[in-house]
């Protein structure tokens, strides 16, 4: 049946609330592995030695298996302990709603984020940064600058402050929020120092 519309975040929440209750251990140790194995067998998936697949049939079979995994298994909300369901039509509506072009950053420093398809001669966007690695607050600006100043880098990704004003940036404390805000300020300073204030983050 055709989808009424693409799902919103609130639609997803409503479905979680009405979803079937499943113990998390059953989801982790039974539902996920059993369904993944069943679909591997159904679609006869065996990757062989190639790192990057070269045959279209393998790619299409894997796509169908992944789509079926999402539709048949559903999706789990850890806090509610419930499973929501989504139809294949709704997945496709969500895909259709997703922008296929994005702009990261601003001004002369933007990166154009467009589909490449296959091994296009167009280089992927290079998002440079510590990718969540722990960084001392004393050198955070310099570490981020070391990425921003690289000509091959098109966009940035933060590291995380290990401390803020000498205090540990502990999760679920006000220091975590203070540290996150400081990361944003420091990353801006790094972009400016590198002469690329518009770089996306």
């Amino acid at each position, binding site marked *: 049946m055709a989808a009424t519309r*693409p799902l919103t975040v609130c639609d997803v929440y409503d479905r979680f609330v009405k979803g079937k209750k499943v113990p998390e251990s059953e989801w982790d140790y039974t539902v996920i592995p059993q369904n993944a194995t069943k679909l591997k067998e159904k679609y006869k998936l065996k990757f062989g030695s190639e790192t990057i697949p070269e045959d279209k049939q393998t790619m299409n079979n894997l796509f169908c298996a992944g789509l079926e995994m*999402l539709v048949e298994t559903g999706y789990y909300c850890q806090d509610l302990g419930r499973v929501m369901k989504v139809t294949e039509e709704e997945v496709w509506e*969500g895909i259709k709603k997703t922008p296929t072009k994005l702009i990261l950053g601003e001004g002369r420093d933007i990166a154009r984020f467009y589909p490449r398809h296959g091994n296009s001669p167009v280089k992927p966007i290079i998002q440079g940064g510590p990718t969540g*690695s722990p960084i001392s607050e004393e050198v955070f600006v310099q570490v981020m600058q070391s990425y921003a100043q690289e000509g091959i880098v098109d966009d940035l990704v933060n590291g995380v402050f290990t401390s803020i004003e000498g205090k540990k940036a502990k999760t679920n404390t006000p220091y975590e929020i203070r540290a996150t805000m400081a990361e944003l300020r420091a990353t801006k300073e790094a972009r400016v120092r590198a002469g690329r204030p518009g770089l996306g983050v």
Partner: protein
Amino acid sequence: MTNAGHRITDAHECSQLNELKMDMCGLNMLAGWTTEGDTIMVEQMPIFGGYCGGIEETAICDVATTLASFALFSGNFHLDGPIHIRWGTTTSKETLQIAAHAAAAIDANTDLLLANQYYPMAGPCTEMCLIETAAQAISDTGSGRELLSGSAAAKGVVQDKTTGMEARIMGEAAKAAAGMKVSDLNEILAKIVPTYEANYTNAPAGKTFQECYDVLSVKPTAEYLQVYDNAVKALRDFGLDIKH
């Protein structure tokens, strides 16, 4: 300062949980960002050898969670990162294969924007770290990904062990690999990956940012530049034509 300086063209990141799971904290953040029209990146790093099981099963879950990023969570692009349960890296043969197959499968069937992140075993200022990073860049580029994010050297867990030089090799390897025949890239990967996987158990820890750069001028040391040149030469010998 509006939005604490985070612009509408900067990415807001929400992580899914392993495997095919989300929590209320993630949903609540997404509710705010979608209302504001922010750029949203949804992350998920499937664990090879974890709840999913083997290579093909993990790739199936990878495709499922990538689709969920868009269909359930209104993401604008997906950040992948299959991780090896024993090694904690994204550069192992198995995790490269999972990421490449998942990306190629989605790329062949949609226009969705796909990214991957980098967790090599070795630390900065080592040839192994640079070659691991380059190998993943070859694999991600060849499988059609649009954005490469990294690199979290030393598995992203040691303080101050990441630098811009690792992003340089990630970008240069991607640039060299873009447009090459996939069969040629597979041949190069078949040569490169075993060379560093053999050293996973005694990988060099590398150096901190403060040891790799002059902290005041933010220039890499002569030592690191030499290590970089050595790594580029090795990659050229493997068949990757990195220019300049």
